[in-house]
């Protein structure tokens, strides 16, 4: 291949990259954004939960719950603080790393201390950190594990709280893919509403 060929193909590469950048880097994302705005305006902007004029969070992003009157979500490994949506990530602790065992031990102890009436094994998702650090869900087992504590702190009956879990449980896709799950932020908002009505 001669030098003219090289020059010609270099020039072609630059022109074609420019054309492709306009099409794929600008036209395509803009077209998708316009379609999203038309058909799925709420979903495309983060599935935000707005209470009055205040953004109370996103239905898809978990929040940190510490108060016993709320259901607690997954432990979060984001840094510098839990559920930092700008610094998503997992603990990346290996399954046989003593640091993981220590962290799990501490979580198990905290859960046991928060509700000494519960015996038996703790659902795995309550004792382990999620992949994103922002997991919005817990398993129905993990929610049921917390019913007694939440009901007591709220002065509600356990059946009232358990019924709330039932209505907030989403199933797997076609019963096959994914796992049953309860959205913690939405469950806690419903709990607040229920407590307000009860008062």
């Amino acid at each position: 291949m001669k030098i003219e060929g090289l020059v010609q193909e270099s020039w072609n590469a630059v022109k074609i990259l420019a054309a492709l950048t306009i099409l794929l880097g600008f036209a395509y994302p803009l077209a998708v954004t316009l379609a999203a705005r038309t058909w799925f305006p709420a979903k495309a902007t983060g599935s935000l939960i707005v209470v009055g004029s205040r953004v109370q969070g996103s239905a898809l992003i978990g929040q940190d719950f510490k108060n016993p009157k709320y259901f607690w979500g997954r432990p979060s490994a984001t840094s510098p603080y839990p559920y930092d949506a700008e610094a998503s990530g997992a603990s990346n602790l290996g399954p046989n790393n003593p640091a993981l065992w220590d962290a799990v031990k501490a979580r198990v102890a905290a859960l046991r201390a928060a509700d000494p009436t519960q015996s038996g094994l703790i659902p795995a998702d309550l004792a382990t950190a999620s992949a994103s650090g922002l997991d919005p869900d817990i398993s129905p087992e993990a929610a049921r594990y917390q019913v007694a504590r939440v009901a007591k702190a709220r002065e509600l009956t356990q059946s009232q709280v358990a019924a709330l879990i039932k209505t907030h449980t989403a199933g797997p896709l076609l019963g096959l893919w994914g796992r049953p799950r309860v959205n913690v932020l939405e469950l806690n908002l419903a709990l607040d509403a229920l407590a307000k009505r009860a008062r």
Partner: protein
Amino acid sequence: MNREYIAIAAYMLVILALAKPLGAYVAGVYEGQTPFLERLLGPVERLFYRLCGIDPKREMGWKRYAVAVLLFNVAGFFLLYALERLQGRLPLNPQHFPSVPADLALNTAVSFMTNTNWQAYSGENTLSYLTQMAGLGVQNFVSAASGLAVMAALIRSLVRRESPTIGNFWADLWRGTLYILLPLSSILALALISQGVVQNFKPYVQAAWLDHSAATAAVPTQIIPMGPAASQIAIKQLGTNGGGFFGANSAYPFENPTPLSDFLEMLSILLLPAALCHAFGSMVKDTRQGWALLAAMTLLFLPLMILAVHSETAGNPALTRLGVSAAAGNMEGKEVRFGAADSALWAAATTATSNGSVNSSHDSFMPLGGLATLFLMQLGEVAYGGVGCGLYGLLMFVFVAVFVAGLMIGRTPEYLGKKIQIFEMQMATIVILVMPLIVLLSTAVAVVTAAGRAGAFNPGPHGFSEILYAFTSQGNNNGSAFGGINADTTFYNVLGSLCMLLGRFWMKIPVLAAAGSLARKKASPPSAGTLPTYTPLFVLLLVGVVVIVGALSFAPVLALGPIAEHVMASGSLVR
């Protein structure tokens, strides 16, 4: 337990069912036939040729084709590097991110140009919307389209008789982008948005914490990232790219919010690589050849995928001893909406291809689950492999397999009527052996240097697995990681970039050289002594060659990493 395996079987069936129609369509695109989108997109295609002054009918020899591939990738690299370095002064940067530091920008530009999409960066706190869409997004498309083009050129070389040329790279690049990747991505992007994947140009949103005890003076609100994510995630999955819009990649709820979005993304990972087998069969006018390759890939994939699923759903015995239920499996580093089984299935799919997107933390997998992901990459990512590169990688193994068979039966090795001779074998050997060389040498360098060892996060053999995984991933252009490794250091950024470049181009160029040589050959009609390459016997021979090469190269290092960890962990349970 059974429910999970039914879900996996259904997933595999959907992939295999889609392989035929999509493969036939892809074959048409590269044979220059007018596909059914022609009426809509034909004018765009012709306008592009006119604007850029390209004659799509002008054929290229393999050298010119290879030069065009390289030049185009170099141009793409410089554009992406410039965008990263200048983003602080460019528009579409609502969070006012500063420009990316030089070594990280280098690593990221190489990473996306080579279809690796290794993430030393974390999107939501480093990259502006402009860098994401005009930089990363474009490379997501064109690196996949380049892989497809090289594959199409290699297939043509098997079909053509005594031809000095193998096609026109610019036309292949453009047609692959316009007729295959763009339509599929548009559909997938909209489907993902319907599930909650974000797509906007808004600044990040401040949300109130519901539990006031979470709010402190330093973090009065939760900052929720935004951005044009869906359009990029669609091509990231379809083009086996895998670089996330957000740091946690497909575990981030805005990238992958529901089981349905998870299924669609997982489907997109294997969709094209599997369909390309049928495209191959269709282009060589013998669909049995394509099915044989697909069968070989599936045979390689299934046992390792099942190993991963089995090991993750069984849970972590060390945690059970601490009072944690094992019923949901090993949930450290996994999301509740996916669960252990689908996370492990995804992990297998993403390492079997050169995708590398993750919906769980591979670093927290059980030792044998981690082993499955490592070994799937170390087989050379030929089952099912990256878009284009998986198929041309497997075809190199096919040459070796027919050569081995030829030696056994004493006949000149042939594939599809073309003699496989010294030159093709040399090229196939380079392609197959260069990857283990890069991976093992880099791992060795990292292990003996302080800068390399400093990257390991977990103690013991698991830390070694992290280093091995990092170079396996980059040498194979995968992009996933044992995420604990501290990869954003000058040592890992530079050595990793080198691995990605060698892993990509040291394979593409020999593949094109082999294509050039094959295209020039005559074809001999099959005779009674010809080895049929579509029989179950040949499929097994091919699988054997892939497994033996992979096992011989990597069994020793795997013994030092995941196998040592597994044995140590089981030992401590006995005590």
